[in-house]
């Protein structure tokens, strides 16, 4: 055991009172010399770290051999713990269903406030314990206050979230035990075993493909279906007289894309300043904006349009606002990421000439991030052009609306015209945005 020996040597050297040099990673200054007593009290030394890693990860992989020395013990565990789940999942080993009749119910307000407090404590306390100065910093105090206010907001039922209830009648034992058997594989995957990761990916994909109603017969149907063939025959020849009535809705679709993108960019720019780590005025604001944006993004644009109909009525308005809202959420994230990716040195220079946060953003962050910001905006315009077709299903006007009308009366010759126009328009927008992007960068 070489590492044990080195550890012993280290202790001996400490006893002799010799100084050991080490550099702390990530800190601005490297610590060249330290008191032996301080060293013991300090963090893990390099030797300790290597000692720990050798104990946990087994012997070093021999780099000269293409596959290293196979670790038979590990491979055996891997094989066993990937075959047993297969047997369970395919019900080759069949266990009965467990009758449970469990009922879970809790007050959502109470649990939400508890979760907020626990998450806050997890985010703040370990950092502050390491660095006691943080307790008194303005950032920590504001974070705590906001956290408590949020928790109180939910606790005192300002917004009543009701009671959650879920009843679990029976449990499929085979699948449950199969999942448990995968435990060692997950453990090995975290220990950076490539084979274990491959096994996990394989299971994940297998689960994805095991949908009832999708399989080889789907592919067979695709090529042998009578109805499908009739539909394809019906699409041609397109009824070109219909074309005159398509142009205006098509232009409306492009207009919708423009309006919603402009709404998106105008709102996303200031929001993204708050949502980027290096430009945000306060971590609390950063987290709040991020949370808001992620919530909005989780709901598709079509659903937003549907939800907005009660506010603005049926028509292009709902569609534009829905798309705009979706653009805001997507663009804020992308803009914020492009702000975070700028080089920090010019920002230091701006700081040194006496620029405040706003000026630093305008002259340091924005010029560097501009190509990304512009190309994301144009890309968003293009994708809004595509999405507005779907959103127009619910709002009046636009190609989407005509498509839905014609599809519902099975008028496929008209649908063919609509599709051709749609494809050409999207292709033109695509070329156009590519051209502009190539000019900016």
């Amino acid at each position: 055991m070489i590492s044990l020996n080195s550890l012993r040597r280290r202790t001996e050297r400490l006893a002799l009172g010799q100084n050991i040099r080490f550099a702390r990673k990530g800190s601005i200054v490297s610590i060249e010399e330290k008191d032996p007593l301080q060293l013991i009290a300090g963090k893990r030394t390099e030797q300790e770290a290597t000692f720990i890693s050798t104990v946990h990860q087994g012997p070093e992989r021999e780099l000269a051999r293409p596959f290293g020395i196979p670790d038979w013990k590990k491979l055996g565990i891997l094989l066993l713990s990937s075959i047993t789940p297969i047997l369970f999942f395919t019900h080759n080993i069949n266990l009965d269903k467990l009758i449970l009749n469990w009922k879970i119910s809790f007050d959502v307000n109470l649990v939400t406030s508890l979760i907020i407090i626990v998450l806050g404590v997890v985010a703040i306390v370990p950092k502050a314990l390491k660095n006691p100065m943080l307790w008194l910093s303005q950032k920590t105090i504001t974070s705590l206050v906001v956290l408590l206010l949020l928790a109180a907001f939910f606790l005192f039922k300002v917004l009543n979230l009701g009671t959650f209830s879920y009843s679990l009648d029976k449990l499929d034992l085979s699948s449950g035990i199969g999942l448990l058997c995968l435990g060692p594989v997950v453990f090995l995957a975290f220990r950076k075993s490539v084979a274990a990761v491959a096994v996990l990916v394989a299971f994940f994909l297998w689960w994805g493909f095991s949908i009832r109603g999708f399989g080889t017969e789907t592919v067979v149907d695709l090529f042998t279906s009578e109805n499908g063939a009739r539909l394809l025959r019906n699409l041609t020849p397109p009824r070109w007289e219909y074309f005159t009535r398509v142009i205006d809705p098509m232009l409306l679709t492009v207009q919708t894309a423009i309006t919603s993108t402009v709404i998106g960019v105008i709102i996303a720019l200031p929001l993204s300043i708050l949502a980027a780590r290096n430009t945000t005025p306060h971590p609390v604001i950063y987290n709040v904006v991020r949370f808001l944006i992620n919530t909005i993004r989780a709901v598709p644009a079509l659903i937003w349009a549907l939800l907005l109909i009660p506010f603005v009525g049926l028509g292009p308005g709902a569609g534009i606002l829905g798309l705009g809202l979706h653009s805001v959420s997507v663009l804020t994230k992308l803009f914020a990421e492009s702000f975070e990716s700028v080089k920090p040195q010019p920002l230091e220079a701006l700081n040194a000439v006496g620029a405040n946060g706003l000026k630093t953003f305008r002259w340091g962050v924005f010029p560097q991030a501009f190509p990304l910001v512009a190309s994301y905006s144009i890309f968003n315009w293009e994708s809004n052009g595509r999405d507005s077709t779907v959103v127009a299903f619910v709002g009046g006007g636009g190609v989407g609306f005509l498509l839905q009308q014609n599809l519902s009366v099975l008028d496929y010759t008209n649908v063919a015209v609509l599709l051709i126009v749609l494809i050409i328009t999207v292709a033109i927008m695509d070329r156009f945005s590519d051209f502009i992007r190539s000019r900016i960068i």
Partner: protein
Amino acid sequence: MQNPNSNETSPVLVEIKDLRKVYPNGYEALSNISFTLKSGEFVCIIGRSGAGKSTLLRCINGLIPLSGGSLRVNGTEFTTLSDQEKLLLRRRIGFIFQEFNLVDRLTVLRNVLIGRIGYKNDLSAMLGYFSQEDREKALWSLKRVNMLHRAKSRADRLSGGEKQRVAIARALAQEPFLILADEPVASLDPELTWEVMNDLQTIAREENVPTLVNIHDLETARHFADRIIGIAKGRILFDGPVRDLTSDHLREIYRSNDLQKKSRYEI
């Protein structure tokens, strides 16, 4: 309180007493630093990597807060200033970086105009409006470092030496009463080193701006400096004119932490 932007220059421009800097991780980067700078002085700071040279410069213009001691710049006590007042003071302190720190996508002229940004209000800074006075000042600074012909080209098209000259022009456009340079020539070849140092020295002499330069290369320091400050392990070991710097001092300044290792000045 004294106006930090007052134009009357006292003979002693920077006065540092018992400056101390302890990083949050408990590492003492600087301790017992005391010296003064007079107007027009060209001072080089020498020392090993990690001795605290960069920390010292960043303390002087307030980029990082001090842990103790007093720092008077142009008659104003820096440590008691609010953040807003620090910005006002910092706009008159030019800072030159090793990596030039220009904004690559902007033109040379815009980069120099950034030096004027501390004087603009938020609105005109956001709109990017610079008055004719600002522009003339920026063009004059560019001319001062012989870079006027590149005013319209983008900063990332320049060579290393040109970039550093633009950075000097940016500092000049600030109308500084003090220039700090942190390893300004460390990424330049010997020929460019000489030119850039020459520029810095000329500006210090002609504009009467005291300049504090961190530098690795001892020969360059000896050639240009009026005065040399040697720092090791966060303490000043030498402070005086170049001719007083002996090999004994150098041995102390460049002494290795490893007792077995011999410095090149110990032979």
